[in-house]
Structure formats: structure tokens, C-alpha cells
């Protein structure tokens, strides 16, 4: 439905994206200003640190999700991959594997899961929704089986401390966002791979006829998405100090919501790295503000739902009017 509106503008795409990002930043700033006035505890260094920590994981998931959505796909498994990865890294660390190696192995597991998705899509012809839904279901089962339904305690202090510390006054967890977002930005917006990703999402047949390997791009998109999810799993394990297969429940929907709020089109071929980042922090700010203002948690859900509608609606409006 919503037959995509043919953009008739001749203006370059870049400016448009840039403007859109500005609007979103404006919204985020507005939220922050309102909250600063409404509650004195919002604009404190401590709270801003909290906010940065709280938004960071969904932000990274949203970036990975964006790659997938740009190819006109979807990755429902990221929440499950996060939970599973906490189990993997916790298990490895408790088995005495050194931190760097444990991290590399966990990321490799994530990558493998992503490749499995791409395999299902490319070679088996499964819809992305289905293959990632199946993984979502199975992966939690496997994680629970490994831990026998309990949690693995991580006793490695160095590992868990990392998540609570800061560098240059900015929480380490947020630095992780920076570390992921900059290469992601270069990949998507400045390299030819990014260009191919858009081409695949826009018209896979055209991409194929241009010599772009569509399967390869699908592997890259899903591989990155799952690897980012594994990365978030590592961050979460560090933050919680436990490995637990049921963590990250429903995060896929939060990541998708952030992505869409950030201007990504679920029909593919439209999206950026900065949009989803801002989208994720808008959602985090709403939750943070609601907590500070002591808004009933049920109201929080209602507000989040309504805000998703409002933000995406205005995005659509602007796109159509151009």
C-alpha cells in the first residue's frame, strides 16, 4: 500500500538527507530543552551519562538494522542475537578465555548467524521476515539450552568494569557507538559498497545487470546486522555482568522503530547512519524523561506508540510535499 510517492524533485539527495537529519536533531534538542525545564535532574552530567549509556545499545542495533532495511529486508533476530551473545561471551570468559579472544569469537558467532540469514534469503529463497523470525525463536532456545535456563555469572572484573567507566567524561558505552558509527558512515555513505546496498534495495535486477553481486551485498548487510547485535551482546554482558539468553527481548522492534524514526524506508533504498542514531536517542530520551518525571510506566508505552506515529507521519508528510 502507500504506493511510494514519486519524488519529482531534482534537488540532490544529499541535501535532503541532511535537512531531514537536522529536523530530527531539532526534535531531540526540543525534547531535551523541555525536559531540562520540566525537571532539574535532567540536565545534570550524571543523567546525561546515563542517557548516553541507555541509548547506546539500541543505537548500534539500529545502525545494523538500517543496512538490512536499505536492501528492503528486515532482521527480526537482533534481540535474540544480543541475548545469545551474552551467553557466548559469558561462557567463554568463565572458561578462562582472554577477553580479546572471547570478543573476537563472539563477533564471529554473530557474523555466522548473519551469514546464515543471508544464505536462507539468497540460496533458499526465504523471505527475510521468516528466516530471521525462525532464528529469533531457535536462538533463544539454544541459549537457554546452553545455560539450562539460568544465568552465567561473569567474574572477570576488568570486563564488567569497562561498561561503567568513562573516557574524557563520556561513558565507554557511548564511545562504542562512535567506534561503530564512524566506519558505518564511511561504509554506507562514502564507499561503493554503500552505493551497492542502495542499488540492491532500489532494484536488485538493475544492480545485478550492473555487475553488482546482489548475494554478496545481502551477505554483507545481514552479516553486519548480526555482528553489530553480537557487539551489543558483548556490551550488555559487560553492563550486566551476566550471560542470559532471554536478554534483549523485543529489542528488534525498538531497533526497527529507531531506524524508521530516523527516516529509513521499510520499502528499501532510503536511509542513513545518522538518522537511526538520532532515532534511538530520541526513544532513550523519552524513556529517561518519563522516569525522571515519574510518569507511570504504562503511560510510557502509550506515549512511545503515539510518538512513533507522529514522527513517522511528519517524515512522510515532508517527503511527500517535496
Amino acid at each position: 500500500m502507500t504506493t511510494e510517492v514519486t519524488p519529482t524533485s531534482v534537488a540532490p539527495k544529499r541535501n535532503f538527507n541532511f535537512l531531514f537529519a537536522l529536523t530530527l536533531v531539532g526534535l531531540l534538542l526540543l525534547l531535551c530543552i523541555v525536559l531540562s525545564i520540566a525537571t532539574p535532574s535532567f540536565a545534570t552530567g550524571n543523567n546525561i551519562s546515563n542517557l548516553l549509556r541507555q541509548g547506546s545499545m539500541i543505537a548500534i542495533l539500529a545502525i545494523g538494522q538500517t543496512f538490512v532495511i536499505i536492501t528492503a529486508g528486515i532482521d527480526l533476530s537482533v534481540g535474540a542475537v544480543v541475548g545469545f551473545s551474552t551467553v557466548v561471551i559469558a561462557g567463554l570468559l568463565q572458561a578462562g578465555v582472554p577477553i580479546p579472544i572471547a570478543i573476537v569469537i563472539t563477533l564471529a558467532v554473530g557474523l555466522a548467524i548473519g551469514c546464515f540469514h543471508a544464505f536462507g534469503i539468497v540460496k533458499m529463497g526465504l523471505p527475510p521476515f521468516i528466516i530471521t523470525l525462525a532464528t529469533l525463536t531457535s536462538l533463544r532456545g539454544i541459549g537457554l539450552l546452553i545455560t539450562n535456563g539460568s544465568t552465567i555469572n561473569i567474574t572477570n572484573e576488568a570486563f564488567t568494569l569497562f561498561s561503567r567507566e568513562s573516557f574524557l567524561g563520556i561513558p565507554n558505552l557511548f564511545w562504542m557507538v562512535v567506534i561503530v558509527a564512524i566506519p558505518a558512515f564511511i561504509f554506507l555513505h562514502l564507499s561503493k559498497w554503500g552505493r551497492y546496498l542502495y542499488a540492491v534495495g532500489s532494484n536488485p535486477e538493475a544492480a545485478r545487470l550492473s555487475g553488482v553481486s546482489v548475494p554478496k551485498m545481502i551477505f554483507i548487510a545481514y552479516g553486519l546486522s548480526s555482528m553489530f547485535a553480537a557487539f551489543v551482546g558483548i556490551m550488555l554482558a559487560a553492563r550486566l555482568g551476566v550471560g542470559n539468553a532471554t536478554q534483549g527481548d523485543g529489542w528488534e522492534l525498538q531497533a526497527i522503530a529507531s531506524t524508521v524514526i530516523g527516516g529509513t524506508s521499510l520499502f528499501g533504498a532510503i536511509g542513513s547512519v545518522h538518522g537511526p542514531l538520532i532515532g534511538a536517542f530520541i526513544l532513550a530520551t523519552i524513556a529517561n524523561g518519563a522516569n525522571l518525571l515519574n510518569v507511570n510506566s504504562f503511560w510510557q508505552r502509550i506515549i512511545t506508540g503515539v510518538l512513533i506515529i507522529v514522527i513517522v507521519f511528519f517524515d512522510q508528510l515532508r517527503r511527500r510535499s517535496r
Partner: protein
Amino acid sequence: MTELSSGAAAHGGSPGASSATDAQPILELRELEKRYGFIQALKPASLAFRRGEIHAIVGENGAGKSTLIKLLTGVIRRTGGKIVWNGREVELATPNEAIAHGINAVHQEVVLCRHLTVAANIFLGDETVKFGLLQTRDMNRAAQKILDDIGFNLPADALLGSLTIGQQQLVATARASLRGTRFIIFDEPTAYLTRSEAAQLFALIRRLKEEGVTIVYISHRMEEVFELADRVTVLRDGTLVGTRNIAETNDAELVAMMINRSLEQIYHKETIPFGKVLLETRNLSGKGFNDVSITVRAGEIVGLYGLIGAGRSEFALSVFGRNPRTSGEIAWHGKVVDMRNERTAIDLGIALAPESRRDQGLNLNLPIGLNINLPVYDQINSGIVVNAGEEKRRADQQIKDLGIKTPSRNSLASSMSGGNQQKIVIGKWLNHGAELFIFDEPTVGVDVGTKAEIYRLFAQLLKNGAGIILISSYLPEVYELADTLHVFRDGHLVGSQAYREKSHEDILAEAIGV
């Protein structure tokens, strides 16, 4: 068949001659064939293309022309036979392999990315990269230079999706000419082009030929074939019927080869007395057109001619209730009506066969029968369920009347060739019936034989008391058929004339605005 086979045999007899001489064909097909399941889209065919020639391929809808092209560009894989390129046997299994040999094509349907810019599309798969980073500005500049050189007036940094289909087709052409350094195939490139755009294209093709590029040119328009080609090959039902030097053949012979019978005349015109006024637009304005007043009477064909983007389709869509009007009024049988939506128009007795069959005309992944019956389901119910017998009967009737080439009404529309898809769009509205038929570019991609059928159908409709608005960018068509011909330019009506009142040149001048 005879002449061709002997030619192929002569080449086939000396496969060892691998040195690239001028006499040696650049590309040779030996018993090439393609099946889709049970359907044999191309029967074993042998054909040789000479270096630097312009080789036209003609044939009815579904004859296998596009299939042949797709085989040569690695879009689909052959199911039998050999392809010999420069004396050596090649696979041509992937688009990349074709590109590597310098073979490229402009396909019948635009295959580009609408979300990317013109420049990004032109360089897709072959980007300029420095230190791993895209050189977007360089590519924009280079693309603009290519476009300017060819003479296409298009902005390189515009999004492809913001261009008309014709302009997109030109981008595809620019793209192909960059890659097809040895061999370029054009599959009905002028179907969506204006006359001046077509002229630009012809100039480009001639230039390419001078540079030694071999051109294969597919078209349903005979005059283009005679204007451009050195040789012409005819396909019928997946079979190669023969190849002729253009100097040694004529219209009639080619048409006879294509449809296996002779065709005295394509344009079928009967004088039918005009009846009462059906539709009148009074100073109608809307998005894309301004202040248009026309009248359509029963028994009359009103032609709307103009360059692409002149506003005719937008006008038609407003008359049909698809797009809102901003001012003016529409009168139906003398009474002013509020054309609120498509349903209103259909119920009044107006039918619209839209210009883009893929985007507007067809439900591609549904059966032909459902497509044909879609507007009439209101009429063929028994109780709350659809009358299945009637549904079948009506679908089969249109398939038969229009000669739609399909094994069954249950086949999906997407498995039809371009021209056959167009027939489904027309059949849909013939099935529904109406007092006023609006045909927007009804013969795009339709072969001569079927064109003649369609024109004969027009006469039939007129005799039954209907009126027709015929929108076409193909001047001979409107010129020969329209009782009244209106010319659009930039959304305005700039001239009107009765049947054959003015010359081709005058009408063209009106449309271009010189």
C-alpha cells in the same frame, strides 16, 4: 529460413578461423535456444552479426526478441546452442561477462535504480574510487559530460525517479553506450521517447556505428528500421524466419514474414457519422495541464498528440477521476458532473487504459483472467459469490478476440511478453464496455499485426456508438486515425485540426513550439 541457414553454415564451416578479420562476424549464434519450462521462447536459431553493422530485429509480440537479447547480455542463461564471440565460444552466463566483452543492452523496460541519481546509475558497478572513497563529484561531472556530449539534456545529479520514463530510457542509453564498447542492443528504445529524443538517439546510434560498434536494434516501427538498419532479421513464434539486406526488402515483405500473411493496410479508418456529444471539458485545469476544452462525440476518435510530458496523461487521469481538477468543469451527456473518483467515471461509462502497463495497467502477479475481469466483478455476481462460469467466459472471450498468446487464462500476467501485456490492459476495458474509451499510448510495444487488430477494434467500438480519446506520441497513429486532433504543449492545448487537415510537419512544429 533457407537463406539464413546457408549463411550460418558458411561461417560454421570454418570455426578454426580465429583471427579477427573484418569478414568474420563479431557475434555468432549457433542453434541457440531458450525454454521456460514447457514454453520454448526461442527455438534453435543461428545468426551472425557483422562488425559495425546496424542489425534490426523485428517480429510479433512474444516472438522471442527480448529473450534473444537477454541471452546475449547474460540476463538469462540459454538452454541450448552456442554463442561465438570474435571467433571464440563464450558462456555469457552473467551480466559481468557480457560487460567484460563490451556487450551491453538498453532493455525494453527501464532497469535502473530510481532511488539513485542519474550519475550514480550511469556509473553503477564501475564507480570512481579514491582511497576507498567514492568520488561523487567527479562522477557527477563525468556523467554530465557524457550526457552533454550525446546531446541529452539531463541533470546528472537528479534522482532517477524524478525523471519521466522517456528520460530514464535515455539514461539507460547513456549507460549502455559507456559499457557496450563493441556491441550494443536496443530493445524498443523509442517506445517511450519523444520525436526529438528519438532523433537524439538515432544520432547517437549512427555515431556509435561510425566508431565501429555493432548495433542490434529491435523495434515495431518499420520506418525506424528502414531509416537506421543495414540488415533486418525477422522472428516469428520463437523461430528465425529470415534475414534481409535493408536495400533489398520492403515493408510489405517484412510484415508478411512476421505475421505469415500479407497486410494491406495498418491504419483502418471508416467514416462513421458522429452522434451526440458524450464528453465535454470546459477550461479544465489540473496538475500538469491548464485550461483544456475538448469535446468528444459518439463515433469520433479524438487524438491528443504532444511530446512526452506535455500533460495529456494528466489530463486523461483527471477526466477519469483519478486526479483532482483545480478548475473548470466536466460535462457528461451535456450535464456537469463531479468526477470524484475512478468509480464515478467507470459507472458513468468511461474507461481508461493507462499508459504504463506495469505501474498502472496490470496486476502482474495475478492471473490474466482476474486482470481482464477486475472492472466487471460488480456485474458478474450470483448472490454474494462471483459467477465463475461467466468469469471464465469473459476472460476467454478477450483472450480469443485479441489473440493474447497464453496457454490459459490462469497464467500470470507477468509471464507475458510486453505486447501481450498491453493487450490484457485493452481487453480489460473491452470486456467492461463503455461509452467513452480513453486509450493512453495503447500500441506501445505492440506489433504491427496486432496494431491493425486494435485499430479495427476501434472502428468496431465507434460503430457501437462509443467515442474514443486516443493519446499517442506516435504521430502517424493519431494522424491517420483521429477525426479531431488536438496538440498539447507544456500542459496547454496549442492547436486543433480535423482529419488530415494539416501536414505532419505543421503538427510537429506545434507540438515542439517552433
